[in-house]
């Protein structure tokens, strides 16, 4: 297993300088996620407008490079998408990480596709899968209006 595949420049960059970090204005959905193994916490905020579009999305929390990069990339990709599309994407993300299945290119722009796929390498590091998936699980919880914090230990 090659570490440079896991820690690609793109991931290191998002890990160090996360985008959409903080609490976004006008959030009308949010959810918390917790990874008891790492002690990492994440809070995802989003605004679903009247057309069920993710008008804005952001996150707060601390974690490892993988976890922060995954959250940051997630917010970038999901912002502006419909709720339905967001759900398709999160399922695709789990499939990619857990089953190594590539995402349908038609679903994303080229730039989005590169970002999304940069996290594929995590699948080869089983102990780190939860780091990458936590933010996506929490996104789902936010869309579902789930009040109980997500516990990645139980879910994955």
């Amino acid at each position, binding site marked *: 297993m090659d570490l440079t595949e896991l820690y690609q420049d793109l991931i290191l960059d998002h890990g160090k300088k996360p985008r959409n970090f903080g609490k976004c204005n006008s959030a009308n959905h949010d959810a918390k996620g917790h990874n008891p193994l790492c002690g990492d916490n994440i809070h995802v905020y989003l605004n679903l407008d009247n057309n069920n579009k993710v008008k804005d999305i952001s996150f707060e929390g601390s974690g490892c490079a993988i976890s922060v990069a995954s959250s940051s990339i997630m917010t970038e990709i999901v912002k502006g998408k419909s709720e339905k599309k967001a759900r398709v994407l999160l399922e695709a993300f789990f499939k990619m990480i857990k089953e190594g299945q590539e995402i349908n290119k038609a679903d994303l722009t080229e730039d989005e596709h590169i970002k999304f796929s940069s996290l594929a390498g995590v699948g080869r590091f089983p102990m780190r899968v939860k780091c990458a998936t936590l933010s996506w699980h929490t996104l789902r919880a936010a869309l579902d209006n789930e009040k109980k914090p997500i516990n990645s*230990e*139980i879910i994955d």
Partner: protein
Amino acid sequence: MSLKDIKSKFPIFKSNKKLVYLDTANSAQKPKVVVDVMDDFYRNKYSNIGRGVYSLAGIATEAYEQSRRAIKEFVNGSEGEIIFTKNSTESINLVATCFSKFLKEGDEILLSEAEHHSNYVPWHFLRKKKVNIKFIPINNDGELDINKINSLITKKTKIISIIHISNVTGHTSPIKKIIEIAKLKKIPVCIDGTQGVAHANVNLKELDCDFYAFSSHKIYGPAGVGLLFMKSKWLDQFDPFLGGGGMIQNVDLKNITYASGVSKFEAGTMPSAEVVALKEAVHFIDQLKIKNIITHEQNLTNYAIDKLSQINDVEFVGTPSSKSSLFSFNIKGIHSHDVSTVFDQDHIAVRAGHHCCQILHKKMNIVSSIRVSFGIYNNKQDVDTLCESIKKCKKLFKLN
């Protein structure tokens, strides 16, 4: 794999060729596969679980959770409702202690007279809160008097905790009926399944009880591991039982929040190798098929009771119509410990004493008894050896 040559799968019978092991209800012998996996884990893969990011720890954690899933499937439980404890005793203590917050003075707990001490003492502790314990009586045959249940349940009955299969008489309690009755009155039910699993068909989704406790070491798995099935609504409503590492979410100087799900009830380091090897025990039983095991053990019980009935002075402790894999008896005029010493000379291992069921023994007007309990490795020859030894015993003590 068949039950015919099953003895060969247990190393103990190779090193102790003459051993007639009739004490499975106390603790079961271990199949070679179980010991092999545990041994391999300790030698080549040892790691604590859940707390390390490195490969050994990752592999251990995965194997540990696989074992949880195997147990879940084996008793047809639900995802995320199987808690690991140290033994069935701890499992029941956990339920009683955590449930106590819902109890107030005058409330009632319903048990039976057939309970093992581990399903009575934890509830007895709650008498400090001035709650009352009532007992479903057993009759002379050792059977639970199901007709009495309705009159014993009152508005104050807050929980019912009942043994699944008696570890003295082998009687199977009518737990399905009890759970149905309780459900109508919205009373939660805890089942002490320590003698149920591996000797009866346990289907938790069908039973629909709130709690079900058992032990790994009695189902051919390693010691040091107990199991507790707990319906998820209780996972949320209960406060934690033991506090420590692994069950917290956030800790500061003023306050502590807890992990959710089963983690909340698993504090401190669990025995990883033992849990991992438990999966092999479950797999072993599955391969033999539980229905074959039930038939095999019930046949042996019937055969044994039949043969022992023909010996004068043998007095059974209850003669329940529902037979499982065990029964108890006395030889009139000889103390159970003396009998056991004689048996030991013939390499027969039985348990002598009150089997942690003083109430049942007192009800039957005896102090102690000999218990014969079968496992998958027993056969009719074991019973024949037992009968010969009983005769020898009587001769030694000059009975005829």
